[in-house]
């Protein structure tokens, strides 16, 4: 039997990074083939070449479907060839009904007039086929996340997809919703639909897969039958990489406990029954670097956001700063209590891109640095210049606009903003994402320096080497729960990854 899909030696480069390096992947009719790897291993990029998000010509290698080399220019092209992708973020229009969504852009019509009864009949039949008790006239926004996911699948089937790609489909689902999804996937499998399944949850991967392919750093590490693999083997394949020595080996001396968190819970904003952080307790000492590891959607950012008073959904729990219980309901209260937060995604959460470095750096501590009501620009310039020098920000002057800086320098500006608030505890969320190696190293040594000066540091990172190289202690989250705690000496990539995949 020939495979329905072959991806041959796929290579994809972004400026300065090789995201995919000769990846080979194939899929048979009725096969459930899982694609696993660390964050950033290239899974999503690979699927984007398959779906035409990255059009033909922007990548190297061949995509072969049914024995024919395909040259997809758009997502539409790949859909015509029978490829359907269900992304992590749902792509449904919430205001439209289930039926309208399923046939969006392909409405049964004559002379541009939609035949509504035909549309809803067809939609009802599709939903019935999948045993989904959903009225096609319901607006999608009224459905839960789990049901929306199933509507996406119905939509894919309406396009007679032969290849169904599911990118972390269970990330936002409850357990019973996951079961419903799997039942439907099994049914599709028996009908001959080939499925590519991307997930961080190895339990699910082993429950469903025929074969498993592991990607690491943009390369295929191996493809094997699921029956020949164990979770430990998969984890070893995922992390099998030398931890480089870009991490300065320094030992930190710890002081008293700076921050303690007890029984913290945080709930999903859209799905308030779902806990994103589930009863997490931990503490961090002065001078200690505490790493928090976990895969995407494990609740790491939500944990920090909740402590910082910035989580917009519901959250509960106790926070103690230097042994004293504090009530933090807003970021300004967190700052007053000595917590700083270098947030992830600097462009979205960190920077005023149109404003100069100075205004960015002084923003969080403005009233202390500049003046309670009237600002004092010279004082601000002095403060910003000092921070720029100690963090080695490469820019002409504190008046250089933040948006014109490189990623590494932008990250340093955000770091500087928080250091200028004189924090006792500093949260770092993905502090080196999307910046070059040189800048990474500078940030690492800055983190070590700050710890030496007695700052308590809590660092969330998706890069395992970074967590292991910098942390004095590592906490691991899986689906919102604390599933592992390792000292610097105990922590190995395998142990951390095992805990992160809920396999401990």
């Amino acid at each position, binding site marked *: 039997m020939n495979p329905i899909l072959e991806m041959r030696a796929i290579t994809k480069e972004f400026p300065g990074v090789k995201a995919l390096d000769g990846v080979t992947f194939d899929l048979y009719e009725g096969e459930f083939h899982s694609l696993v790897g660390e964050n950033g291993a290239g899974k999503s990029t690979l699927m984007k070449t398959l779906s035409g998000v990255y059009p033909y010509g922007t990548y190297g290698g061949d995509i072969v479907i049914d024995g024919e080399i395909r040259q997809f220019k758009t997502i539409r092209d790949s859909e015509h060839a029978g490829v359907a992708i269900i992304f992590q973020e749902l792509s449904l229009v919430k205001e439209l009904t289930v039926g309208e969504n399923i046939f969006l852009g392909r409405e049964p019509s004559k002379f541009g007039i939609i035949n509504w009864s035909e549309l809803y009949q067809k939609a009802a039949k599709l939903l019935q086929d999948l045993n989904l008790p959903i009225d096609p006239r319901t607006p999608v926004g009224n459905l839960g996340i789990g049901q929306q996911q199933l509507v996406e699948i119905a939509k894919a089937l309406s396009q007679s997809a032969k290849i169904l790609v599911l990118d972390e489909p269970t990330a936002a689902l409850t357990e019973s919703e996951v079961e419903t999804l799997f039942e439907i996937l099994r049914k599709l499998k028996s009908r001959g639909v080939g499925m590519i399944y991307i997930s961080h949850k190895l339990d699910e991967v082993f429950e469903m897969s025929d074969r498993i392919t592991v990607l690491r750093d943009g390369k295929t590490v191996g493809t094997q039958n699921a029956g020949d693999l164990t979770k430990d083997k998969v984890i070893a394949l995922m992390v099998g990489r030398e931890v480089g020595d870009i991490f300065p080996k320094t030992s930190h001396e710890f002081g008293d406990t700076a921050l303690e968190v007890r029984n913290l819970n945080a709930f999903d904003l859209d799905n308030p029954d779902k806990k994103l952080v589930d009863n997490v307790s931990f503490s961090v000492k002065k001078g200690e670097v505490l790493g928090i590891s976990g895969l995407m959607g494990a609740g790491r950012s939500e944990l920090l956001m909740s402590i910082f008073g910035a989580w917009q959904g519901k959250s509960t729990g106790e926070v103690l700063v230097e042994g004293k219980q504090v009530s933090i309901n*807003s970021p*300004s209260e967190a700052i007053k209590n000595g917590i700083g937060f270098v947030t992830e995604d600097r462009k979205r959460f*960190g920077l005023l*891109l149109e*404003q100069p470095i100075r*205004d960015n750096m002084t923003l969080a501590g403005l009233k202390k640095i500049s003046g309670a009501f009237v600002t004092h*620009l010279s004082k601000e310039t002095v403060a910003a210049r000092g921070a720029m020098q100690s963090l080695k920000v490469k820019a002409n002057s504190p008046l250089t606009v933040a948006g014109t800086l490189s990623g590494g320098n932008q990250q340093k500006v955000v770091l500087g903003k928080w250091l200028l608030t004189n924090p006792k505890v500093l949260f770092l969320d993905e502090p080196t994402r999307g910046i070059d190696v040189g800048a990474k190293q500078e940030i690492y040594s800055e983190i070590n320096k700050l710890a030496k000066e007695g700052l308590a540091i809590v660092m969330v990172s998706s890069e395992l080497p970074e967590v292991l190289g910098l942390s004095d202690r590592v906490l691991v989250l899986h689906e919102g729960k604390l599933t592992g705690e390792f000292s610097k000496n105990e922590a190995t990539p395998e142990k951390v990854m095992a805990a992160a995949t809920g396999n401990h």
Partner: protein
Amino acid sequence: MSEKVEKSGFKIETSALRSYTMLGALILIWLFFHWQTGGTFLSSGNLSNLMLQTSVTGILAVGMLMLIIAGQIDLSVGSVLALAGGVAAIALTNWGYGLPIAIILAIAVGVFIGLIHGTLNAYGKIPAFIVTLGGLLAWRGAIKGVSRSETVSVADPTFKMFGQGNLTIGSGWFLAGIAILALLFLAYQRAKSQKEYGLGEADYKAELLKSILPILGIIGFTFAMNSSNGIPLPVLIFAIVAIFGAFITNSTTFGRYLYAIGGNTDAARLSGIDTKLNILKVYMLLGVLTGIAAIVFTARQGSATPDAGTLKELEAIAACVIGGASLMGGRGTVFGACLGALIMASLDNGMSLLNIRDFVQEIVKGTILVAAVGVDMIGRKS
């Protein structure tokens, strides 16, 4: 894009560069009308008139600008102006209150409405466009109800001074002198603090050079006004409001927070800024300025009419946009907004002098608004 342009120790920021472009455009418009009207446009009498026409829109534009910087908008200021002015006039004429009460009432109406709009927008999460579109209708209805759709004339001569009075020639020059001294003092301070904070040598010469243009402007302005009837009081009020607005946006933490909120709300919130409270405050501040504009407007007309201030909100918004403010928030200056108001008034004034028909005037103004933003977008891309 907006890097600093350094030129022989003379630093110009691109936002300032844009203001200079606008200033250039204004001068071209003035020269054009001056030529077309055979010398009437730049006569001191007409300049005095032009400044008077600018003042009400200008006061509103300063308030509007602060709201626009924060990423919001207010479509109701024309209606609020009518209501605040109407209440003041009714208090004076019908209820027999004195001048201070009337003034306080006008401002209180503005602040109260700002409180309502701000609460609904920031805390009720209703978009500013909707809240103030509702306000545009509702407050216009309110003034029609309060005034029974009748014009209320004002007899109080002191009140009328706010719209029709002029400074004496002597006091005009006196104030101009104070303004020039203040400019020089600020320049001296800037140069001195440069040295004090170790940011380089105190460059008195450069700071002095930078002050020359504004000083010449003040002298020219005062000379022109004094050649007519002296500086009109509404123009003085506008100037004070503009200085106040420039101070708030440039030199206060509140002003900085407005830029931060408009530029990136998430980043502002995560930096500990109470975004909602600050948005509420800026609505109330706009309310104060709308109340002041209402007093000037009503005093100038000598009466309050139920349809006073119609379309003023759009003129104020247009002034901000022509002056370089972005409706997406985070960008704009008080100086630009004032310049924008002056450009709008110049077009009105000049075309009226040329007896250009109303409909053409409107088409020209609309075209210029869109063209100004279009040119700006092209400039930004390159």
